[in-house]
């Protein structure tokens, strides 16, 4: 009885949580311009995405490309910077370690708006013209802390003697780094990269304040501008449905694989 009640509670919450997403997914299979208007089943909107015949012209496709490029570059650079820094921080002691860990926490606690405004003021102050580069720098600044936090526990779990042993056995430091250190840190780096990539993809506020006036649009800023004009570009519906389906499949695969390794 208790179990039934608990299950029901979870499923009611999930149904409510997924209602908007399912709603969009259903209306991705019709052609109507306004969401919530059913004009018969059609795959026209899906076709538009792949043929480029989007109502919003090339701008939606450009926004998607920008979003992906920014997220990839920012996540890659954050992973590099975050991993190197985590090794450094791990080897620090005392007050120095606490200070840098405190600074590392600030971007995670800071609300997006504050991060955005503060970076905007920085670029204004430095007379740095805003565009692609400033957005990427801004994204690196709020993504790197997550990489540092993902890699640090792996350093803690690692046996430091293995690295020393590699050196004793004649490996150069760079060889020991590549063959011993990096492979052990890889899971942490990977989850850090994924986290950074997601944070960057989903960001709106920071991009909004640091993109300048050159007309750079990411998916978020595009959707924002679109909604302000009134009415979403209909092609966003199949797009969101596709993204959601891909992520769902990836997660299921990852979960199945993890379940398998856990059994071993």
């Amino acid at each position: 009885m208790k179990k039934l009640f608990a299950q029901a509670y979870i499923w009611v919450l999930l149904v409510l949580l997924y209602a908007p997403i399912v709603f969009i997914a259903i209306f991705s299979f019709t052609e109507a311009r306004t969401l919530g208007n059913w004009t018969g089943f059609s795959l026209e909107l899906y076709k538009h995405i792949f043929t480029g015949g989007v109502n919003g012209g090339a701008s939606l496709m450009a926004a998607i490309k920008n979003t992906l490029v920014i997220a990839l570059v920012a996540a890659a650079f954050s992973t590099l910077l975050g991993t190197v820094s985590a090794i450094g921080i791990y080897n620090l002691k005392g007050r120095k370690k606490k200070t840098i860990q405190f600074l590392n926490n600030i971007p995670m606690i800071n609300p997006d708006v504050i991060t955005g405004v503060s970076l905007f003021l920085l670029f204004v102050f430095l007379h740095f013209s805003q565009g692609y580069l400033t957005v990427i720098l801004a994204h690196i600044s709020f993504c790197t802390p997550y990489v540092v936090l993902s890699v640090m526990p792996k350093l803690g779990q690692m046996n430091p003697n293995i690295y020393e042993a590699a050196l004793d056995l004649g490996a150069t430091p760079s060889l020991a780094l590549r063959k011993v250190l990096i492979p052990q840190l890889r899971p942490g780096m990977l989850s850090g990269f994924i986290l950074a990539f997601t944070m960057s993809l989903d960001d709106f506020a920071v991009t909004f304040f640091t993109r300048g006036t050159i007309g750079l649009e990411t998916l978020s800023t595009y959707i924002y501008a679109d909604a302000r004009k009134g009415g979403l570009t209909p092609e966003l519906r199949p797009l969101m449905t596709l993204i959601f389906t891909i992520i769902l499949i990836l997660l299921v695969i990852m979960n199945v694989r993890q379940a398998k390794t856990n059994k071993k």
Partner: protein
Amino acid sequence: MSKRSNWAIPYLIFLVLFVVLPLVLIVVYALQDGNGNFTLSNVTRFFTDSDALSTFAVSVEVAIENTLICLLLGYPAAYILADKNLNKSAVTVILFILPMWINALMRTLATAELFNVFGFTLGKGTLLFGMVYDYLPFMIYPIYNVLLKMDKSYAEAASDLGATPVQVFGKVTLPLSMPGIFSGILMVFMPTVSTFAISEFLTNNKIKLFGTIIQENINSSMWNYGAALSLIMLVIIGLTTILLGGDEREVEGGTI
């Protein structure tokens, strides 16, 4: 090995340039007039600007209400998810986190549209509902994590010693899950109090939140006043963090 501590230096420089300096600049711009002279007028202007003050009050109110609703709905959910007898599959946990991968603005717009279809008038009610949608996972996840790691033998010991299930929960489980509750509150309250765009979509521009006012001022080149408003927000955030012991060491060793 000691030389490897130097590897933190580039990041330290990066943090100073892209985290510390920008925050200092908020203070600097907040205390300057348009010509770069020192002034307190931006800050005093906020306290005499009834529009900004009422928006500020509404933002804090909405954020507190949203945090409370998320806690009331999220705690039982986290409890059920972490209990092996009630929930066996890890997939349900993932299902709660999955919506976060969908663009937040997109989700919000869909929510607003859903309200329209069902004939609800967009306003305070729909704003809260939509915000709970957006932030509930952020409350569930930290509480779930703490409950999952919790040593079950405490609760078992308490019930072996004759505590009723209600007593076990009130005296053992709840106090031990406090760190999760605190970080959940932090993760929901902070973004809600500063949110912008979301509130406009969910209320059809009827209710403006503090983040929107900051954005409007910055976008209309009122940098100094915008910075002053950001500074006020920063103070609120700082106070909340200290109050909730955002510092993990304090949470762990705190008098719970």
